[in-house]
């Protein structure tokens, strides 16, 4: 799917940190460029439904996707474009779904961030926050039944979603079953417009770990290196059989909740804190400072990403929309058990 000169790839993961860092950066960049493209299509009236961006959250997301292996499980949420790409989702799945093509993985039945390929370990989120975690648990339980050791399941969550009963039940379930679950909570300080202080009362969400009897990890979500190390460690722990890992990364969302939202409510004070920095810019500076990449290379990558995204958008725009006349209006797999008499006339 990717045709970069030097494609970042999941195969051939290396312990060469600068190389992994470069790869991570390029997925982040690709995610940023791809989402900016969709946002501009949205502004141009070319997208139906909502557009939700991961701007500012690419570091924690990509670190999750990269730390996982083939055969692992990933349940991304709305701000996980970078992690999806790093985990192996094709950019075409992204554009085909946003543009409502019949050939996308959701076939126009669901849209935007609601996509996945369960067979490839990528779960398609339902909207109800917290609901994907226990599904990951179940996949891990199945792996245990099937003697597949060493599989890890990662689920993303926001600060707001920690208030759901589903979060609690599923983290507790994972703890009781000692499942290799990595629960990555990105505390971007807001749930839609609601700030942390209206969402929970502990001083840091990672304090929840002890009450579940699981390990907790705190991460600077604006720092790619910290994200890679922190998530990497959590995934290693989970894979080694040490049970669920609760990771809490802190950052700011650098976009609206969705593209319809101007995020005027985000406090200037927070924006000016280190927390408010852009993880992509941070990572770029780091690349340059450490001599891991030169400016012309960064520019090349940016151009490559733009080409990639344009290609994927153009491709998706050419794909036909779903056709209601030939659509298979059957919600179950056993067609003979469809409640046919019950259909609309």
């Amino acid at each position: 799917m990717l045709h970069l000169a030097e494609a970042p790839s999941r195969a051939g993961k290396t312990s060469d940190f600068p190389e992994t860092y470069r790869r991570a950066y390029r997925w982040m960049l690709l995610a940023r460029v791809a989402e900016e493209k969709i946002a501009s299509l949205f502004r141009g009236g070319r997208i139906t439904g909502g557009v939700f961006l991961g701007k500012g959250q690419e570091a924690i997301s990509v670190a999750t996707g990269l730390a996982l292996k083939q055969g692992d499980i990933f349940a991304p949420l709305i701000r996980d474009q970078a992690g999806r790409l790093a985990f192996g989702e094709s950019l075409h799945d992204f554009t085909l779904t946003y543009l409502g093509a019949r050939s996308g993985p959701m076939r126009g039945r669901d849209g935007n961030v609601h996509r996945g390929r369960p067979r490839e370990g990528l779960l398609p989120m339902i909207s109800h926050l917290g609901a994907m975690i226990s599904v990951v648990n179940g996949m891990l339980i199945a792996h245990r039944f099937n003697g597949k050791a060493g599989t890890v399941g990662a689920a993303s969550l926001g600060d707001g979603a920690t208030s759901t009963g589903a979060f609690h039940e599923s983290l507790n379930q994972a703890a009781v079953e000692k499942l290799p679950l990595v629960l990555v909570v990105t505390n971007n300080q807001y749930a839609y417009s609601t700030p942390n202080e209206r969402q929970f009362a502990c001083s840091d969400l990672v304090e929840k770990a002890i009450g579940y009897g699981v390990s907790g990890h705190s991460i600077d979500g604006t720092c790619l290196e910290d994200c890679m190390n922190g998530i990497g460690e959590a995934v290693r722990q989970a894979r080694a059989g040490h049970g669920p890992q609760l990771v809490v990364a802190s950052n700011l969302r650098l976009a609206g909740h969705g593209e319809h939202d101007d995020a005027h409510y985000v406090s200037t004070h927070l924006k000016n804190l280190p927390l408010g920095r852009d993880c992509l810019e941070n990572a770029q500076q780091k690349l340059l400072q450490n001599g891991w990449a030169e400016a012309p290379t960064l520019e090349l990558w940016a151009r490559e990403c733009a080409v990639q995204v344009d290609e994927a958008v153009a491709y998706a725009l050419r794909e036909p929309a779903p056709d209601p006349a030939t659509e298979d209006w059957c919600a179950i797999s056993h067609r003979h058990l469809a409640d046919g008499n019950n259909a609309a006339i």
Partner: protein
Amino acid sequence: MITYLEAIREAQKKALESDPRVYIYGQDIAAFGGAFKATKNLAATFPGRVIDSPISEDAMIGSAIGAALQGMRPVIEMQFADFSTVGFNQIVNQAATMFWRTGEPCPITIRLPSGGTPGSGPFHSQNLEALYAHYPGLIILTPATVEDAYSMLLEAIALNDPVIFCEHKYLYYHLKAEALPSAALPVGKARIARAGRDATVVTYSAMLHEALAAAEELAADGWEIEVIDLRSVKPLDTDTVLASVARTGRVLAVGEAWPWGGVTAEVLARIATDGFNLLDAPPMRLNSKDTPVPFHPNLWGTHRPTASTISNALRDLLRL
């Protein structure tokens, strides 16, 4: 001109103004004014009475029940009707049973932004009125007009029983009226939205407007279709429905929700049992298809009934 959404905001404003027991609780409803801006500016006007909640639908509703037991009149905004499934238990088992078990009224109003709009997909489009109507102890309102959105929400808040207020998102901005109503039909009464003599369409909420358009279309061919807006689906005003069927002899029930056990099933069951001899032809119904609500506008437009599928059904009905 005032929109359906503005009417909902105005009703909440009026309730807050006139009754100190009223408060509103929901996600992002205070300073932000709600995902749909249904509470815009209310937090500033009524400090401390329009409150942001955590993302905890079960606790949101549970707390409303407790406050109601202590004499308050909470209004709970679900961000989307679809998310009420995670607050479901408190609604159907705690709120709905409270009066019957204890004799204490439980005056809570739960606002459910309901129904499909293009691109909103399987989890932001649901119509859950039948779900709640199945349970004893709840009143289920489904306003189809700007006027009803206003007056029925005010009445909902004033009622001593738990009310599920199904407001339709498709109507939020599309539907406009000249002014807020000064008088209104009470909850529990259906309304004849268009008089006719050849057939009756029984419907509610956003489908009213599709049905009216279909009736208009058939009028061009000389057919006079009566259209009934149920307004509340529980209680369901069977008398008004039967009186209409008595006049027309033919009936089509239309709902945007799924077919199995929906409002249309209940309406037809009542007509069949109590109005059988009024019918000149088999009654018909039209619902959405029995699948999740699709994201893509092409599919969505086919999934739910529209003026054109309703007028087709009516032509069939008139031919029978």
